């Protein structure tokens, strides 16, 4: 019984610590989405290990420019993110842009996309991955 309580306590502590870490990273990451962009109103976060990806299904409206910022840890370049269309054609990858922490995507038409995010294994083995998305029209 005592052992079970201890395990639950450790899990709760890890959970709270991970939440706090994610909040701090999200606050830092939000700074990349400057005032001219309006937040999309959602929070995207996942605890990542090694090269295990997190996948986000998203619709981007035509006629809008989206700023996507991806962060992990407390320095830039720790999160790799790629955007694919519904046929899995690669539309953008920050790995091709020196691991840029943010990038603007200008959509002419509305597209249903998948964003895949993984840690940059050269700098991080595990951590909270956060995406922040803003738009302007």
């Amino acid at each position, binding site marked *: 019984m005592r052992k079970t309580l201890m395990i*639950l306590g450790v*899990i*709760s502590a*890890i*959970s*709270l610590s*991970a*939440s706090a870490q*994610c*909040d701090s990273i*999200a606050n830092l990451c*939000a700074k990349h989405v400057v*005032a001219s*962009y*309006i*937040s*999309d*109103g*959602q*929070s*995207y*976060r*996942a*605890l*990542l290990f090694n090269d*295990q990806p*997190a*996948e*986000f*299904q*998203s*619709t*981007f*409206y*035509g*006629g*809008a*420019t989206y700023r996507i910022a991806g962060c992990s840890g407390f320095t830039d370049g720790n999160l790799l993110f790629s955007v694919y*269309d*519904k*046929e899995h*054609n690669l*539309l*953008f990858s920050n790995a091709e*842009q020196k691991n*840029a922490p*943010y*990038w*603007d*995507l*200008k*959509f*002419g*038409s*509305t*597209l249903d996309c998948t964003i895949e995010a993984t840690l940059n294994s050269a700098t991080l083995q595990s951590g*909270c991955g956060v995406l922040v*998305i803003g*738009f302007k*029209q």
Partner: protein
Amino acid sequence: MFRNTIKGLGPVALAAVLLAGCDPKGKDGEDKGDAKSDTVATIVKVGGSMFSIPSPVQTALLIERSGIGFDKNILNPSTKVTNYATNYQKALNLGVYGADVGYVTIYDQSQEALKYLNSIRKLSDELGITGAFDQNTVKRFEANFGVRDSMLNLVNVAYRNSDAFLKDNDRLNVGSLIIAGGWVESLYFTTQLAKKKKDQAIITRIGEQKYTLNNLIKMLAPYNDQPEYKALIDDLIELAYDFDAVDIQYTYVKPVVDVANKTTTINSSTKVVITDQHLAEITKAVEALRNKIVGQ
């Protein structure tokens, strides 16, 4: 219940997702606002997909740009906030009011926006969401009267903080309902306004919701074992059958990268085909669902 006549594979595939079962996180239908101590927070969970539903503000901006004037009648009155007794109703209508406050803000109805913001704050407090919609948010909103984008961003950042709070506290079910409420209200705006003016951009935006609706159903699917959620998911699947008639043709075109401006232009295109008859069916179904949510 699902329709007897199968009109297409899309909704059937969605139904299969539900029947296959998903990881039931945040299962408490009547969420009391407490963080659970016996489960690891959702952010620690790895694997599976997360879903992003476009902000209702984007559609409200499209409506304003199409030249359609402000119409108070399409809103859910802010005074109805006291009608919502259960956490299920509160969460859905927190989303509905989010779409409403975006719409009135875009049309420079600042005092009206303030009323909605206070209703949002009330629902948020009652749902135990802390640190998102506080007095400071309301004050900053007032301080930015007249600066539309700043007002919209303040509200959306508050919704993002609320979403983060719910995810941190293993209450994804509540967060999903808020998003669902906002999406339905936004679709209600466009379908009602398309009845008044056959604006092609608005009609196209309605048709584009086919994919978003699929994502929304998948987002809610883990809670299908709770009666209230099941009823909502069934209604959304019914709606997906109507959307199945919308034809979306996609053509991939290689994107163009502008490294200096850190911008990539996505040139792929989609063409949405929707008949008047199908639009009318979608409009009718959305109206029924939205009125069920807001209690009309």
